C-alpha cells in the first residue's frame, strides 16, 4: 500500500472533531454524527447541533448508498496529483439513509465524466489510498 509520503494527492488533515469519521472509514464503515437530542444528522463533523444546541451526538452507521446531487468535471490539472485522471468528475452525493447529508467523491470504477448524471444511484465504497487514510469513493449502483 502507498505510504502517505508517496501519495501524490492532498490528504485529509483531521481535527479532533473529524478524526472519528476517518477512523470509521478505515474500518470501511460510513458513519455520520447524529444529534442525541433531536436526531438531526450533521456533516462535516462539528461539536454542536445547529438545530437544538446540544453537544451530545452518536456516530450512526448508514448504508453505503447514495444519489448524485451535482458534479463538476476538471479538464485541467488544478492539482498535479490528479493530472493522470483528466477529465476528472468530482461528484456530490446525497446519502440515502442520512437525510440532508452529502459527501463529495470521485468514481473509482472507471465511470467516465460524460456518464455522470444528476439523480444517478451510486454505491459508496472505501479506497485505502495510503497506510493512514481510507477515502469514501463511489461506484455505479
Amino acid at each position: 500500500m502507498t505510504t502517505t509520503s508517496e501519495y501524490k494527492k492532498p490528504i485529509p488533515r483531521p481535527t479532533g472533531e473529524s478524526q472519528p469519521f476517518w477512523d470509521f472509514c478505515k474500518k470501511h464503515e460510513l458513519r455520520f454524527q447524529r444529534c442525541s437530542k433531536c436526531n438531526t444528522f450533521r456533516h462535516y463533523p462539528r461539536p454542536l447541533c445547529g438545530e437544538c444546541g446540544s453537544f451530545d451526538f452518536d456516530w450512526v452507521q448508514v448504508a453505503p448508498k447514495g444519489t448524485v446531487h451535482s458534479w463538476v468535471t476538471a479538464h485541467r490539472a488544478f492539482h498535479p496529483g490528479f493530472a493522470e485522471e483528466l477529465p476528472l468528475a468530482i461528484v456530490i452525493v446525497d446519502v440515502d439513509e442520512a437525510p440532508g447529508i452529502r459527501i463529495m467523491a470521485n468514481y473509482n470504477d472507471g465511470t467516465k465524466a460524460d456518464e455522470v448524471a444528476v439523480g444517478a444511484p451510486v454505491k459508496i465504497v472505501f479506497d485505502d489510498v495510503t497506510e493512514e487514510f481510507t477515502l469514501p469513493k463511489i461506484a455505479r449502483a
Partner: protein
Amino acid sequence: MYSPKELSNKTCVVGIGETTYSRKSGMTDLTLQLTAAMRAIEDAGIKPGDIDGILPQAAGATSEDFATNLGIKDLRYSAQINMGGASPCAAIQNGVLAVASGVCNYVLLLSGRNGYSGARTAQSIGAGLGSGPMRTMGEFEYIYGLVAPMLWYGPMARRHMHLYGTTSLQFAEVSIAMRRHASMQSNAQMKDPITIEDHQSSPILADPFRLLDCCLQTDGAAACVITTPERAKDLKKKPVYISAFGEAHPDSPSSITQRPDMTTFGIAKLAPRVFEMAGMTPKDVDVAELYDCFTFTVINQLEDIGFCGKGEGGPFVEGGRIQIGGDLPVNTHGGLLSQGHIMGMNHVIEGIKQVRGSSDVQVKDAEVALVSGYGDFGDGALAIFSGR
C-alpha cells in the same frame, strides 16, 4: 439607536480613484493601492491626513501601512472583512456605521493587488489549502481534486442547469455583455468583442465552465472615500448617497456541498432588507454592477436579488437585456470577466460613476445603481447608490 432604515442616505461617497487595470503594474501591491487611495483623496478634495478610518480589503498591505504612508496621526477605526470577493462591497457597511456613528469623519475603503504579475490569484487560493474559511473544504473536498474556485462553483451551476434548464449559451450572453462594455471603456483589460461562437469554442476548463465563463487575473487597485452629506457640502464633487448596504451569508456558510439548496446565495436573504432600507424595489434600479467571478454567478444573483424569479436568470440575460441600451444594463465597466479582478472594488467604483453620470458606458439618466459582492462559498454583499 438607529434602525437600519434611518441609516439610508445618512452617508455618501465623495471621492473615487482607480489605477490602470493591467497584467503588469510595475508597482508593488502597496504602491498600487496607495496610488488609487491618493486619487480618491484628491478627487474628494481633502488631505490624506483627514482620513481617520481605513478599510483595506486586500492582503499585502495593512491599515498601519496606509496610516504611515498617508500621514494619518489619529487612525480611529480599521477593519478587514474576511468574505473573499464580497469584502469590498460588504465593507461599505463598516464605512457607513463608522461615519454615521461619529466615530470617523472620512473613511477610506480600498482594494487591489498584483493579481497577475505578482502571486497569481488562482495559485494563492491553491496555496491556502485547508486554512482559514477553506479548512473544512481542504479536509473533505480538496482531497478529491476540488482545489480551485471554478471547481467549487461548477456543481452550483450544474445544479441550476439541471433544475431550471439554464444553458451554456445563456452563460455566453453574460460573457458577451461584459466584453462589449469593456470594449467601450477606456480602462479595461480585455477589449476585443466576442461572439457566442467564440464562447462556445473556448476551451472547457471545469465543465460546465469554459475559459470565457471565468474572470481575469489583474494588477490594479481602486478606492473611495465615505463621509457625511454635511461634510460633502464643502467638497469638490457632488455626493453619491449610500441608500442601502449590507452583508449576507448563505445556509451552511462554510460548505456548498452541505447546503440544502446550492443555487441560493446569501444575498437572497439580504436583498429584501436593502430594498426596504432604500425604500425601493428592483424596478427602481437603473444599472447593476454584479460580482462576476463566473458567468453563472451573475445569472444566479439576478434571481436572488429579485430582478427575475428563481430559475428565470438564464432567459433574463438573453437578447441583450443586460447590455447597455437593454432593460437592465449589468457591469457597464466590463466586470471581473473583462475589465479586471480586484475583488469587486471596481464594481463599487462603477456604481458610483453611474450615479455621478461619469462612466465611459453611461446609462442615460441613471439615478440608482445597485452593486453586489460575492465571495468564498456564497457570501454576499449589496449596496444601493443614488443621487437622491
